[in-house]
C-alpha cells in the first residue's frame, strides 16, 4: 500500500508537470481562496493584538462620560453641556468604585510657535487628567495638583505636537500661542500612538489647566460646565460597577427618571473594543466569503480538469487494469493527482497571502500578524478540497470497465 501511494505520488507529479499551463489555470481558484483565508486570519489576529495594545494605552479602567442632549434638555442645548465639575466631585464622593474624575473641556485650536503653525485639540482639565489616563511626561513637568482653580498659562503638549512645532528643539520653557494667548510649555507627554477608536493620533493634543481654558480659550462656557468627565475606576474589575454607579448618581443629580433617556453617555473601553471588533469582523467576513467562494470555485475547477484527465487517459486506465491495477490503485492514483494540484494551489496561495500581508503592513500600515496555525489550516483545507472534489473523477476512473477502456479491437 505504501509502495503504491509513493508511486501514485510520482505518477501524479509527472502528470501535473506534463500539463503545466493547465495545472496553473486549474489551481488559480484555490490559490486565490487560500491567499484570502491567510489574509483574513492575519488580519484577525493582528487586529486583536492591536486592539489590546491600544486599549491598554488608554487605560483599561477608564470610563468617559459625554454630554448628550436628550428631549428634556433639548431646550438647554444652546446653553451647552449639562455636565459639571460638581458632578465630577459628586462621583468621587458618592461612588465606591471610582478612584478619580477629571473634568474635561475641549476645543479645536490653532497653535503657533514662531513661524510654525499647527492645529490640534486643546484639552482643559485638572492634573487628575494625567493620573486617570496614567500618562506621564517624558520631559519637563505637570502643573501642581492644587489649587483647583489654578489658571496659569502653562501647557503640556503631546509628542506629535512637540515634533510638529519644535522639530528637534527642546520645547520646555518655550512660549507658544494658543488662539490669542501665549502659553509656556512645561511638559511633553510620552508617546501613546493611535487610539483604538478610528485610529486617531493620541499624541496630537495640548492639555492646559481647566481654569485657564475657561479664561482664555472659550470664555462663553457656563460656569462649572464641562464637555466630558474622565473617570477612572478603582480597578479593571470594578469598571462595570462604576458604570452603574455613575449612571445612578448622574440621573439623580440631573433629575432624570430611571425609565427616560439620560442627558449623558458613558463609554467604557469594552465599548470601544466592541466597536473596533465589529469593524474587523465585517472586513474579515467579507474576505472570508471571497476566500470560501474561490475555494469552492477552485474545487470545481479541479473536479473539471480531473474529469478531462480521466477521459483523456481512458486507455491508460484500461492498460493499468489489464496488468493488475485494482480499483483502489486507480482511485488512489487520480485522487493523489487532485490532491497534489490542490496542495500546489494551497502552497502558492499561502505564499501569495504572506507576500500580500507584508505589502499591506508596509503600505497601508494594517495591523497583521502571520501565525503558523492558519497557514497549516490553509494547507489542510486545500488538501481536503483536493480529496473532496477529486473523489468523483477518481471513482469514475476506478469504476471503468477494462475492456471498454482498452477500446474494442
Amino acid at each position, binding site marked *: *500500500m505504501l*509502495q*503504491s501511494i509513493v*508511486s501514485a505520488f510520482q505518477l501524479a507529479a509527472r502528470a501535473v508537470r*506534463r500539463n503545466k499551463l493547465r495545472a496553473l489555470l486549474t489551481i488559480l481558484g484555490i490559490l486565490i481562496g487560500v491567499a484570502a483565508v491567510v489574509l483574513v486570519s492575519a488580519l484577525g489576529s493582528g487586529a486583536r493584538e492591536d486592539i489590546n495594545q491600544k486599549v491598554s494605552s488608554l487605560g483599561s479602567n477608564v470610563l468617559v462620560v459625554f454630554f448628550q442632549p436628550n428631549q428634556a434638555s433639548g431646550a438647554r442645548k444652546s446653553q451647552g453641556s449639562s455636565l459639571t465639575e460638581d458632578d465630577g466631585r459628586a462621583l468621587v464622593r458618592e461612588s465606591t468604585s471610582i478612584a478619580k474624575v477629571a473634568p474635561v473641556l475641549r476645543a479645536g485650536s490653532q497653535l503657533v510657535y514662531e513661524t510654525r503653525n499647527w492645529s490640534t485639540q486643546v484639552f482643559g482639565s485638572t492634573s487628575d487628567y494625567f493620573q486617570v489616563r496614567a500618562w506621564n511626561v517624558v520631559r519637563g513637568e505637570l502643573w501642581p495638583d492644587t489649587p483647583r482653580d489654578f489658571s496659569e498659562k502653562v501647557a503640556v503638549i503631546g509628542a506629535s505636537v512637540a515634533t510638529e512645532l519644535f522639530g528637534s528643539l527642546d520645547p520646555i520653557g518655550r512660549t507658544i500661542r494658543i488662539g490669542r494667548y501665549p502659553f509656556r510649555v512645561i511638559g511633553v507627554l510620552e508617546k501613546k500612538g493611535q487610539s483604538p477608536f478610528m485610529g486617531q493620533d493620541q499624541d496630537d493634543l495640548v492639555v492646559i489647566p481647566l481654569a485657564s481654558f475657561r479664561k482664555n480659550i472659550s470664555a462663553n462656557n457656563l460656569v462649572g460646565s464641562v464637555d466630558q468627565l474622565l473617570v477612572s475606576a478603582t480597578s479593571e474589575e470594578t469598571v462595570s460597577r462604576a458604570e452603574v454607579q455613575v449612571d445612578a448618581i448622574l440621573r439623580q443629580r440631573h433629575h432624570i427618571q430611571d425609565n427616560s433617556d439620560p442627558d449623558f453617555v458613558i463609554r467604557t473601553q469594552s465599548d470601544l473594543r466592541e466597536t473596533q471588533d465589529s469593524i474587523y469582523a465585517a472586513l474579515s467576513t467579507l474576505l472570508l466569503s471571497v476566500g470560501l467562494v474561490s475555494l469552492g470555485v477552485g474545487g470545481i475547477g479541479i473536479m473539471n480538469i480531473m474529469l478531462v484527465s480521466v477521459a483523456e487517459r481512458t*486507455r*491508460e486506465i*484500461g*492498460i*493499468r*487494469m*489489464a*496488468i*493488475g*491495477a*485494482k*480499483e*483502489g*490503485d486507480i482511485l488512489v492514483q487520480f485522487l493523489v493527482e487532485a490532491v497534489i494540484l490542490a496542495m500546489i494551489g494551497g502552497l502558492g496561495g499561502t505564499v501569495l497571502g504572506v507576500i500580500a500581508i507584508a505589502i499591506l503592513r508596509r503600505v497601508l500600515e494594517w495591523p497583521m500578524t502571520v501565525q503558523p496555525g492558519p497557514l497549516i489550516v490553509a494547507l489542510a483545507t486545500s488538501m481536503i478540497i483536493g480529496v473532496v472534489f477529486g473523489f468523483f473523477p477518481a471513482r469514475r476512473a476506478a469504476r471503468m470497465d*477494462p*475492456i471498454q477502456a*482498452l*477500446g*474494442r*479491437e
Partner: protein
Amino acid sequence: MEPIIEMVGVEKDYASGPVVVRALIDAHITVNEGEFVAIVGPSGSGKSTLMNIIGCLDRPSRGTYRLAGYDVGSRSNNARAVLRNRLIGFVFQGFNLLPRTTALENVELPLVYRGQRAKHRRAHARAVLAQVGLADRVDHTPNQLSGGQQQRVAIARALVTDPPLLLADEPTGNLDTRTSDEILALLQRLNRERSLTIVLVTHESDVALCASRVITMRDGHVRSDVRQSSPRDAGEAAARAQSEPEPTSARPGGE
C-alpha cells in the same frame, strides 16, 4: 500436463438495446500448460470475447471457467485484477504501451501493482528487456521505437511477472511480415524454453500455422479444434529474410 484453462459450457451474451447478441455459445475448451494455441475466425465470430474471458477481463454469462484452478466467474473485480497480475501477461494489437513513458517504466508497471520496491522492479525489468533484445533501448519512449520494438516492450511487460499464460490479441496485426516473424519467433522460443502457455488471436494463416493447436470460431461457436504436428518455424523464416536485402532500411531506431 496440468490444464491451465478449463471452460465448460461458457457463454457470453451482450445486451445491446432490446437485442441480445450471443457472442460466445457453449464453449468447451481445455488448454494444457505449454500449449501454443491460435484462435482464428472471421470478424465478429467471438474471438476477442473469448480472449476477454480467458484473460479475466470479463466474466461468462453462463458456464464455468477455471484458470489455473481458480473459478473466475465467481470472483470480484479486485480478485480478478489480482489473477491477471499473477497469472496472465497481455499483448495487444496496438501495443498499448503508456505514452511518454520509457520502455523500462512500462515494463516495471505490473510489478508496481505487486507492491515491489523500485530498485528490485528496475533490475528485473532491465533483465527482461534484455531477454527480448532491447537492452539498449530501456530509456526510449514508445514514439522513439519501431512497431516491432514496441511489441517487444509489450511482451517484456507481459513476461516481467513470470506468468504461466500469455494472451495475445492479434499481436502482429500492425506489423510487416518480417517483423511479425521476428515477434512470432520470440513467442515460439518462450513457449519452447519456458513452456509458457500462449493463446493468440489472429486473422493471418501464416501466424496461425506457427501454433501447435488452432481453434476456429464462427458465429460464437467453436467450429474446429485441431492440433498441428509440425508448426511453421518463424525463426527460420525471419533468418531467411535477414539474409535477403533489406527493403526499408531507414526504419526509426532500426534493429
